[in-house]
């Protein structure tokens, strides 16, 4: 009995009907969190002593970077579930997670570059974290490219699941190597380690934004997976009925 929900998850229809009522709530929740967090961070949190107002980018940069990395693991784990238990739904989640993760990685990179201009005086610095983020972006692009290249949907899913798993094994190694590489070449002028002593008045809006981004991620992942479910099941009676209802 305990495993019943797990087997039910294999049914795309069950998933679609179950998650339907969640969507408005999730949308409202993430909108409220993101808007209040952004307003709080932009207008009410105190300015940073050293960086002034430019630090306010942290409220989108850090959550996006969190989700970019977490998203890769979500993608790889659902890919693994799809490979091991041959669960169609997990494949659909994996396929949906790839573009979301890529966009969030892109957001983290761009906001980081914009933040770097007033802080370091340059758009791009080969900093360890930025470089790792860039490589994560490439990993996402690889998964998406592989997914697109196969005509047959099932093969595409399996192949990109394997690639995602290989990437998961490699991510810690890549991060450690890039860290090590950076300490080797670190220019003495750039020091950026003040994040650990962040003041609570700056931290709370950040936490709001992080939770908001998580909710948003869940929302978008469900949205994408749901439309993927409809696409794959379009020949079945329940999707046809759904279309008839409007």
């Amino acid at each position, binding site marked *: 009995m305990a495993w019943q929900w797990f087997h039910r998850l294999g049914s795309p229809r069950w998933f679609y009907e179950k998650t339907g009522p969640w969507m408005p709530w999730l949308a409202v929740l993430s909108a409220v969190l993101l808007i209040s967090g952004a307003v709080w961070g932009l207008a009410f949190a105190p300015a940073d002593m050293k960086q*002034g107002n430019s630090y306010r980018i942290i409220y989108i940069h850090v959550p996006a970077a969190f989700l970019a990395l977490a998203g890769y693991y979500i993608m790889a784990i659902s890919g693994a579930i799809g490979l091991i238990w041959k669960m169609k739904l997990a494949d659909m989640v994996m396929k949906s997670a790839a573009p979301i993760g890529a966009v969030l990685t892109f957001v983290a990179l761009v906001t980081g570059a914009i933040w770097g201009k007033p802080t370091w005086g340059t758009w791009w610095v080969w900093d360890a974290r930025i470089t790792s983020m860039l490589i994560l972006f490439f990993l996402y692009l690889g998964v998406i490219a592989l997914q697109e290249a196969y005509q047959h949907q099932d093969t595409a899913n399996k192949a990109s699941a394997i690639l995602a798993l290989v990437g998961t094994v490699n991510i810690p190694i890549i991060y450690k190597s890039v860290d090590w590489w950076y300490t080797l070449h670190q220019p003495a002028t750039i020091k950026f380690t003040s994040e650990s002593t962040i003041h609570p008045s700056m931290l709370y809006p950040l936490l709001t934004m992080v939770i908001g981004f998580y909710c*948003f991620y869940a929302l978008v992942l469900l949205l994408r997976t749901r439309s993927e479910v409809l696409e794959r099941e*379009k020949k079945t009676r329940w999707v046809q009925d*759904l279309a008839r209802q409007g």
Partner: protein
Amino acid sequence: MQFQFDSVSDLLAMAGHGPYVWAAYGITLVSLLYLVVTPLRRRRALLAALRRQQRMNRAETELSKQGAAADPAATPSPSRDPRVN
């Protein structure tokens, strides 16, 4: 917690850092909206396409019925209803 700026124009300027901060938030907003809008549009397009096909199928079966009524000897065209899985 208090409003950190003297005026709205002050908030927009952010002591010179305004363009950077607002550009970052703007790009993020556009990216997040893109993530929300694409699956919604795809869902709507798919359902519309299915509806269109259903209408076509219905019209086809109507026609074949009429044809069958007019000419009883004509063989009824096989149903091409996609619902039959």
